[in-house]
């Protein structure tokens, strides 16, 4: 690895129009091979952190380095190239093209990397194999379960072997069984060396990760655990099901408590 950190945020702030302070000075470093959760209630700024780390948006101040590149110095074209090469995204809503086979959906993820089409399809098949869907290459999204659809999306994100995988509420649309299935895939990818950041409001998933970064009101309030460690066992209840949900009365005075119901939080 050429750079010491895959992600390095330094004093990052983000102010949206109307004086909404989404991030109020965030420092965060992620080394290669870590598995971490960025966790916080809605409105905490974790989505904005995803946008910063994913180079989808630029900070108001502070520096964001991804894979060693200072994104402030990059043009829109260079940022696009950086995303195509360095980052893989998994979204809550899967974002699979309807009517297109799993194989082609995954291959589409490599479209902007300059790899010839035939090799894209070969790599896509290999990526689907990695997430345990080698037998579902020709299935269309509507023929797959929710968990399988999200695994296709994970395969699309990792098909190009990006140094960093960003998962935004990857289990948010899934029941607990399917959520566990997706987390199992992420655990295996982590075990084989992929750096993974999961953005979630679900403390149970956060606790499952070896490193947890807790965000509240645009600041990091806690950061503990060793990202290089092994994730916890996946219990049947892991996922966005009822056992562990953060209630929403967290904002805006900044002093609220997180109350969780059930779970291990």
């Amino acid at each position: 690895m050429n750079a010491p950190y895959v992600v390095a945020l330094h004093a990052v702030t983000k102010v949206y129009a109307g004086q909404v302070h989404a991030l109020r000075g965030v420092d965060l470093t992620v080394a290669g091979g870590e598995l971490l959760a960025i966790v916080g209630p809605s409105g905490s700024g974790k989505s904005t952190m995803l946008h910063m780390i994913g180079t989808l948006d630029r900070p108001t101040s502070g520096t964001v380095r991804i894979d060693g590149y200072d994104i402030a110095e990059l043009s829109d074209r260079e940022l696009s190239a950086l995303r195509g090469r360095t980052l893989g995204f998994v979204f809550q809503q899967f974002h699979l093209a309807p009517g297109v086979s799993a194989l082609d959906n995954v291959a589409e993820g490599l479209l902007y990397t300059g790899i010839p089409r035939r090799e894209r399809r070969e790599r896509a098949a290999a990526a689907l194999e990695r997430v345990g869907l080698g037998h579902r290459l020709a299935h269309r999204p509507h023929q797959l379960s929710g968990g399988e659809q999200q695994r296709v999306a994970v395969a699309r994100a990792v098909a190009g072997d990006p140094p960093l995988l960003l998962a935004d509420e990857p289990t948010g649309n899934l029941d607990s069984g399917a959520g566990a299935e997706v987390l199992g895939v992420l655990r295996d990818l982590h075990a084989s060396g992929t750096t993974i950041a999961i953005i979630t409001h679900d403390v149970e998933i956060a606790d499952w990760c070896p490193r947890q970064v807790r965000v509240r009101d645009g600041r990091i309030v806690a950061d503990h655990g060793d990202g290089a460690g092994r994730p916890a066992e996946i219990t049947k209840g892991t996922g966005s099901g009822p056992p562990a949900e953060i209630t929403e009365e967290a904002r805006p005075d900044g002093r609220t408590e997180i109350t969780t119901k059930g779970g291990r939080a």
Partner: protein
Amino acid sequence: MTRDQRLRPSRLGPSDVLRVGAAGLRARPTRVILSALGIAIGIATMVAVIGISSSSREQLLRQLDRLGTNLLTVSPGRTLFGEQAELPAIALDMVKRIGPIHTASATGTADTGVRRTDRIPEAVTGGISVQAATTELLTTLEGRVAKGTWLNAATERQAAVVLGSEAATRLGITRVGVRVWMGGRWFTVIGILEPMPLAPEIERSALVGFPVAEKLLGFGGHPTTIYERSREEAVEAVRAVLPRTVNPENPNEVEVSRPSDALAARAAAASAFTNLLLGLGAVALLVGGVGVANTMVISVLERRREIGLRRSLGATRGQVRIQFLAESLLLSALGGLVGSVLGALATTAYALSRDWPPVVPSWAFGGASAATLVIGTIAGIYPAMRAARLSPTVALAAQ
């Protein structure tokens, strides 16, 4: 620390651009068909208009080719005092002495009418004129007899008449051997002619021999029209000397015309009408283009999440732009292709129903392709710019 190595986005190959553009269309077949239909109607109109007018012109040109353009007619003009002039009685013999002329003949209008029976009042002429004709007339006009025979050295002295095709129709005569009432006595119909596009006045005539016309119909012997054919390359030279040859005293009282010019003028006149219809086709095409632009704008609005996803996968703004441009171009090209085929089919069907040779010039197809490409590009530019300007975070947050 910043890396020295510059990041450069990979280029999207042409086949990938096409695939991505086509994928967007495949996802919404109904809408694609409906908006391509607008373009198709416009293109079909233009191709059919061009095709039908080309077929009609081709028909006229082939007819001209068949009939020849070396036929000249000589007729009396007006005197200096504005009275109807007369051709000298020996005009035909004079014309025949002009070197390049290989055949010449004359007709002279007799001042009488032709009727089925003597019971029909004289005022009813049916628009049919009675003409004295020399026996060479059929050769000069390259006409043919549909039924019966043409006048010969014997019948031109008898009470025998040959009817032009139109004259026969108006008189209701379909066979030879019947009698008609001319100049106060019966004439026997011995022949009916086929149509003569170069000499429509003959089609509307009842033709008798010069001798019998002078004897029985009070014809003065002055020809009213002289027809002649010369070598093709000498037509202009012949045309120049004809007035002085026909009437050396008053060459200004002689009118010379070229019947094939009328057909050629008809071919040219058709194009004015064609331009009007082409304008209508262009309006249809414009409306089709607006339809495509509308479809594309809606498509961009609906597919914001896809755009966001592609940006997260590493697509540059330019690549998003080209994706939607390609989609718009494909949509419009699809319409153009269907329209060209429809236009060609319409042309063929119409031409065959009129017995014309179906002709669609290749430039019509070239123009159709060019028009669809231009329309597709113009219709696609604005939606593609909108798609490219969309910020990735806004696009991904879209519901």
